């Protein structure tokens, strides 16, 4: 469980001090899905960095299962990231020189897993995202959607507790976006992950059971009730366009049922 209390983050740029987060309080239960939305520069990514242990707050605490990420040593924080947190990036962030399988393996390196087991687990993770035939391909030989699948396999190969996604569909076309979202929702269900995602895409945001909107470093939470909430909006005549973007009437179904759970082979 995440418990953020009074999280404030200030950056100094030259003589100017920018307050990216202002006393954010937030609780995320295990297995929850939270979507963070907001304008550019509002503090979304900063919040994700705090939650992921990629950076430390200037003030306040970020507790994961009772451990304050703001206070533990760098070594412990690094170890915690390696064990518990899987991250997906907007630009996929694959190592360009390594193959798909080797990229997935990089997540297991800090855990001290033996090479043979590493390779086996990486191959398994790639198969689970539908890339069993692409193990030896370099990122440049893969499409954007495939690259993001490699990144997802990399995030999940270590069986993390938390999955963080920073605009995971930001660089993808609509069709691929739906594929990836379906995959992520399926995995979230399958593994019982705590899934926290930053997005610009309001159609994705509307689907989230919980939505956190960050503006000027301050957070506002909305309980939406997930797909049901979206269905109600659609019935009220709002967001027809967004619904169409997800595939018309079928957009009312959760991604899992629509694409991933629909048995299309992920």
């Amino acid at each position: 469980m995440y418990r953020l209390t009074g999280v404030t983050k200030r950056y100094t740029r030259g003589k100017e001090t920018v307050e990216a987060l202002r006393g954010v309080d937030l609780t995320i239960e295990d297995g929850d899905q939270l979507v963070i939305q907001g304008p550019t520069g509002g503090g979304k990514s900063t919040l994700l960095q705090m939650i992921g242990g990629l950076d430390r707050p200037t003030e306040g605490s970020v507790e994961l299962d009772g451990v304050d990420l703001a206070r533990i040593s760098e070594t412990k924080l690094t170890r915690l990231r390696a064990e518990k947190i899987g991250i997906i990036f907007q630009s996929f962030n694959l190592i360009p020189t390594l193959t798909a399988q080797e990229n997935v393996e990089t997540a297991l390196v800090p855990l001290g897993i033996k090479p043979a087991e590493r390779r086996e687990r990486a191959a398994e993770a790639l198969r689970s995202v539908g890339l069993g035939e692409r193990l030896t391909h370099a990122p440049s030989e893969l499409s954007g959607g495939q690259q993001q699948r490699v990144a997802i396999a990399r995030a999940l190969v270590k069986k993390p507790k938390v999955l963080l996604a920073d605009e995971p569909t930001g660089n993808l076309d609509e069709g691929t976006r739906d594929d990836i979202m379906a995959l992520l929702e399926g995995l979230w269900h399958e593994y019982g992950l705590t899934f926290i995602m930053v997005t610009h895409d309001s159609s994705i945001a509307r689907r989230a059971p919980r939505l956190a909107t960050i503006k000027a470093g301050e957070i506002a939470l909305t309980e939406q009730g997930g797909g049901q909430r979206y269905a109600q909006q659609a019935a009220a005549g709002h967001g027809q366009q967004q619904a169409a973007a997800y595939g018309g009437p079928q957009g009312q179904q959760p991604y899992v049922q629509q694409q991933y759970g629909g048995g299309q082979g992920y």
Partner: protein
Amino acid sequence: MFGIYLKRELGRRKKAALVIALGLALGIALVITVNSVSAGMTQAQDKVLKSLYGLGTDMTVTKARTAPTSGSSGGPNFKFDAKSSSSSTQSSDRVQTQGGQALKSSLVTKVADQTGVESAVGALSLNVTKVDGSFTQGKAKSSTSGSSSTSGGGQGQPGGGTATGQPQVQGGGANFNVNSYSVAGVDVAHQGLGPLSTMKITTGKTFTSAQTSAKVAVVSKSYAKEKKYKVGSTFKISSTKFTVIGIATPDSSESDTDVFVPLKVAQTLGDAKNQVTTIYVKATDSKQISAVKKEITANISGTTVTTSADLASTVSGSLSTASSLATSVGKWLSIAVLVAAFLVAALLTSSAVSRRVREFGTLKALGWPSRNVTRQVVGESMVNGLIGGALGIALGLGAAYAVTAISPKLTAQVGSTGGGAGGGPGGGGPGQQASQNTLEIALSAPVSLTTIALAVGLAVTGGLIAGAMGGWRASRMRPADALRSVS
């Protein structure tokens, strides 16, 4: 993972790796070349010194130079009879101790008795100036009065008679050849030290220890060729007949002695009984040479002690110039290039790391400890450095072998300048000629294992410096850099 990642990175960034490696290679190659050429210079200098001294000679003792007193042992003096016959061929040898300065033979024992001296051997250097030619008396014409025939001077053709008045002398003249060569008196009992120790007998044999008074000679190969002497040939020095028993080739390209004869015989020839011009000294410990020099100078007055170090400072000519060029300019140039190569490698590595901000940030976000990321960067640099080192060694060896193959000729003038004390007013030639010796030495560039080890060390250092710079940057990167949108 470390190995795979390293291999893939270097494989993909071949160009960048090659630029870094080439930079280092250039620096290292230069260091090897300069080092080898420098070693070659030292070898060449040693060769020059060896040619003068012979192997095992640590120093020589000669008489301290004094200003020549007027009249005594001045220039060469030749006597010819002005015979009445109209034309006659005459020949005269003038034998003179080199520089006209000699030490008593007894000093050899005295030098040998000094502490730190292992052995001392005396030798006598002589200069023989042979003048031969024809002399024609001028004829006085009746229309002229008086006779003022002038005999030819030492050299050349003074031309006809002078026309200062009447009567005139016409048709008189002289035609002489002046030929000078050097003779060394060798202690036949101790040939391992002294002038003959620089020579190798290529034909015939050398003196036996019993031949102290034998009229036999060993001649240098070049002189033998010039005079067409063979083993068994005979020649005369001041009416003493010598038989050639051996022909010797100098260890270096040239020797300043043409004829070697037993010491006693040389002393008789040069009218220098119980005298030597040079005492060759071997010290018991080659590290104690300067102490022994002091000892001899202090205990035996009126002598000059010359060590090989002293002699080295008198080496001039292109060898000396090239040598100082290699040690000063070459050294600084290679240091400058090396420093530049290190800097370029460090900067390139550092900038390569900067371009990989997101990559390293991602690894950190994935939970890679900083040391793993740093190790990766340092590893890449080290491999670059080693590739550079290997290329550099290959390049350097190539250059060194090229120098050896081309073997540029260097000349070295060895000897004290202004050593013409023996060349009095008239001559000037012989004394000067013998003490100033020009040698031609082929330059080689031997590559030692130490040089190779140095190059490998430099390559590793270069890689480490570059890696340290890049690694430091990589270690300072934050995992949050993974979220940067720059690509």
